[in-house]
C-alpha cells in the first residue's frame, strides 16, 4: 500500500476502521444487554407478580445500554460522512 496516494489511503483506513469499530461497538453493548435481559427473565420467572416493575426497569436499562452502541454509530457516521480532518487530506 506504500505507493497509494495519501487520499486513497485515508479513505481505505477510514472504511476499515469504521467496519471494525461498528463490530466491536455492537458486540460489547449486546453482551451487556444479554446480561440484563437474562437477569430480568430470571426475576420474572421467580416472581411473576413483579413483572410490571421488572419490565419497566428492563426497558430503561436496555435503552441506557443501547445508547452506547448509538454513540459508536454516531462517531462512525461522522468519520465516514463528515470527517472534520478530511479537508487536510483531500484538500477541501
Amino acid at each position, binding site marked *: 500500500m506504500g505507493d497509494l496516494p495519501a487520499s486513497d489511503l485515508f479513505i481505505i483506513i477510514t472504511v476499515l476502521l469504521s467496519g471494525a469499530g461498528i463490530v466491536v461497538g455492537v458486540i460489547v453493548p449486546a453482551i451487556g444487554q444479554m446480561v440484563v435481559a437474562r437477569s430480568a427473565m430470571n426475576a420474572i420467572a421467580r416472581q411473576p407478580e413483579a413483572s410490571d416493575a421488572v419490565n*419497566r426497569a428492563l*426497558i*430503561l436499562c436496555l*435503552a*441506557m445500554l*443501547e*445508547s452506547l452502541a*448509538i*454513540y459508536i*454509530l*454516531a462517531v462512525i*457516521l461522522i468519520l465516514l*460522512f463528515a470527517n472534520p480532518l478530511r479537508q487536510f487530506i483531500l484538500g477541501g
Partner: protein
Amino acid sequence: MELEQEFIPVVLFHIGPLQVTSTIVDTWIIMAIVSVAVIVLGKRLQIKPARWQNALEWVVEAIDGVIRDMIPENPRLFLPIVGTLMVFITAANLGGLIPGLSSPTSDINTPLAMAIVVFFSVHYYGIHEKGLLGHLKHYVEPIFILLPIELASELARTLSLTFRLFGNILGEEIVIAVLFLILPYFVPVPMMLFSIFTSVIQAYVFGMLTVVYISGAVRAYE
C-alpha cells in the same frame, strides 16, 4: 454520494434570517396530521366511548400510568409535557415511513430541542415543587463531593437523550436505505416493519426517561 444527500436536510427557503429546512416542513406536516386527528377525534366526546375515543383514552391512560408509577403524588401535573413528547415522537418517528417525508427526529436538531425542553422542565418542576434552595440542595446531598458528578450527569443525560433518539432513528433509516440500494422492493419491508417497533419503543423510552428525571427532581427525600 446519493446516500449522503439523503440524510442531510436541505434548506428550502428563508424567513428573514432563519433557514427553513426540509426537517421543519416535515415537522409541520406531522404536526398538522396529529393536530387534525386529535381535534376531529376529540370533538364529540361521550360518556360511553365509541371506537376511536376508546383508542384515544387508552393512549392517555397508558401515559398516565407510566407517570403514576414513578410520581405517585400529583401525577396529572406532568401529563401534558410527557404526553406531548411521547405523542409527537411517536408520530415523528413513524412519519419517516410515509413516502416523501423523512423523520424529523433523524435530524439531530429535533431531538436536541426536545432534550433541552426536558432539561429545563426538570429544573422548573424541581423549583416549583421544592423551592429554589430545596432544589439546589439535592445536588450536594448526601455529601458535597458529589456536586461535580451531579453536574456532569445533568449534561450527560441531555446529550444521551439526544443521541439515543437521533442515532436509533437515523440508523434505522440508513439500514433501510442500504437494503433498498442492494435489493429494492421486497427486502427492506421486514426492516420497515421492525422500524415501527423501534419508533414506538424509542418514544416510550424518551417519555419514560423524562418521567424518571422529573421524578428525581420533585421527589421528596427522607
